[in-house]
């Protein structure tokens, strides 16, 4: 009992050790409680969709649901492709070449998420000032390549991961 200071140090160590173990314990139980809200296995299992596009005429498009979101599959005409490629990159808020938004050799097919990058509405096709899409919610205009041109949306409409299984079937996801 003649060394009170040393005793205090020992207690400090115990406090710090207890807080640390406590914090780790709290963290270990909080993470499962937070992570349970992330997409579950059933949601993740819906990750791919195959679409038969053989019936789509040039200039037309179809919309399919993938992971709860609409995907636009548009078969573009040569004029539309030419229009998309004539745009100067400087005119684009989110500069991206049309060539980078389609698969090589499949230039007529534009496959993209039909989700406005502003707040997630579904844009209307063949509307707006740029011959592409127009989002009715907050007035974003997209061009024929799905690139943002005017309005509050910050980015071009997203291109999902997809591949051509054969010339008629597109697999999204």
């Amino acid at each position, binding site marked *: 009992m003649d060394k009170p200071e040393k005793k205090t140090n020992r207690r400090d160590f115990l406090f710090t050790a207890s807080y640390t173990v406590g914090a780790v314990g709290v963290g270990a139980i909080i993470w499962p409680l937070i992570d349970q809200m992330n997409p579950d296995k059933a949601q993740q299992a819906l990750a791919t969709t195959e679409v038969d596009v053989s019936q789509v005429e040039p200039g037309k498009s179809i919309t399919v649901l993938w992971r709860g979101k609409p995907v636009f599959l548009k078969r573009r005409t040569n004029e539309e492709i030419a229009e998309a490629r004539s745009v100067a990159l400087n005119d684009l808020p989110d500069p991206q070449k049309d060539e980078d938004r389609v698969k090589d050799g499949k230039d007529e097919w534009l496959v993209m998420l039909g989700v406005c990058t502003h707040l997630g*509405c579904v844009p209307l096709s063949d509307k707006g000032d740029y011959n592409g899409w127009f989002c*009715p919610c907050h007035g974003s205009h997209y061009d024929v390549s799905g690139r943002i041109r005017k309005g509050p*949306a910050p980015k071009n409409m997203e291109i999902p991961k997809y591949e051509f299984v054969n010339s008629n079937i597109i697999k999204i996801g």
Partner: protein
Amino acid sequence: MSEHDYIPKSKAGKWFNDRLPLLSLASHLTDYPTPKNLNYWWTFGGILTFCLLTQIITGIVLAMHYVAHADLAFASVEHIMRNVNYGWLIRYIHSNGASMFFLAVYIHIFRSLFYGSYKSPREVIWIIGLLIYLLMMAAAFMGYVLPWGQMSFWGATVITNLFSAIPLVGESITTWLWGAYSVDNPTLNRFFSLHYLLPFLILGLVVLHIWALHVPGNNNPVGIDIKKPSKDTVPFHPYITIKDAFALLMFMIIFAGFVFFAPNVLGHSDNYIQANPMVTPAHIVPEWYLLPFYAILRSVPDKLGGVILMFGAIFILFVLPWLDTSKVRSAVFRPVYKQFYWIFVIDVLMLGYMGAMPAEGIYLVLARVGTIYYFLHFIVILPVVGLLEKTDPIPVSIAEPVLSGGAEPSLAKKDNGKI
């Protein structure tokens, strides 16, 4: 007067009160000295308590019949409307009750702004009140999603997408909120769970709000500190309870008017179409009580900027007690602030109107002007007016107003002879 010297009359009451002083609490609430000049704008606290209890009771009943599943929710709401005994009544009370709740809370907030109730020493009451308001907005938003109509679905999509504006982690947060890759069944499920939880959190905050109120006591229309108890105060019961009860009756008449004669006038017809993730309605609008903030969101041509300003419009209220530099509470004695107050009221109403209109042309211009003025009011006008304004003379007590001229005639009337 205070609970300290309260002794129950009966022996059993004393026995119980010594162990749990609930009777002392009841006595404190009954005798609570209240300024005698409280006007009808002060009755909305009671009205809001009524609104909260109405929502909780009708909500618990609705949850007995509602099914929180993307395939069944829409049909279960129609089931409530058509098959459940008095289901139509309970649901219409609940859905219109949300609007009535917000109507009352806005009056309550603007009363506080006019009479300076947020100022020292009542800052904590004000901040707890704002937390209640935030939880109310969250509860109302999630409740609106539950019928799983088109407006439910797309409202949920737009609001949850606000979080995607956060740099780097925004997309992950949005996915986490959804529990899916879009608003979907998991989203509906968790919104139902949280919608059931939030009112009880609000109830807890209401208790703190009233507790914090009972420390300094009520502000009053002349905004001066008063001695309690004194000839400036009356006991809460029966003087304030009867006034609150009368105001509540008037409020319930309006409430019943909506429920029985125009139950859908505050809603949107698109919500009677089942949610369809492939089609966005042509014109998405939130419920009326969120429109001013929606107008602010849309007035900024930048996604992150719009979200920051929208949340900023709410969070700036938290520092209001420190932005307003005037020592005088009530606008009655602040001739300059009084005018800016009414301009601000008109500004918020205008923003609300712009939020309901398409975001283009003149509407967009006006929404931008309104947004700038909204922030100008708090950041520039309030601090500057507080420093420069020459306020009118303030009465020393409610019973003895200032001699002449300055105060409102109605305040100076009663005791004129004596002074």
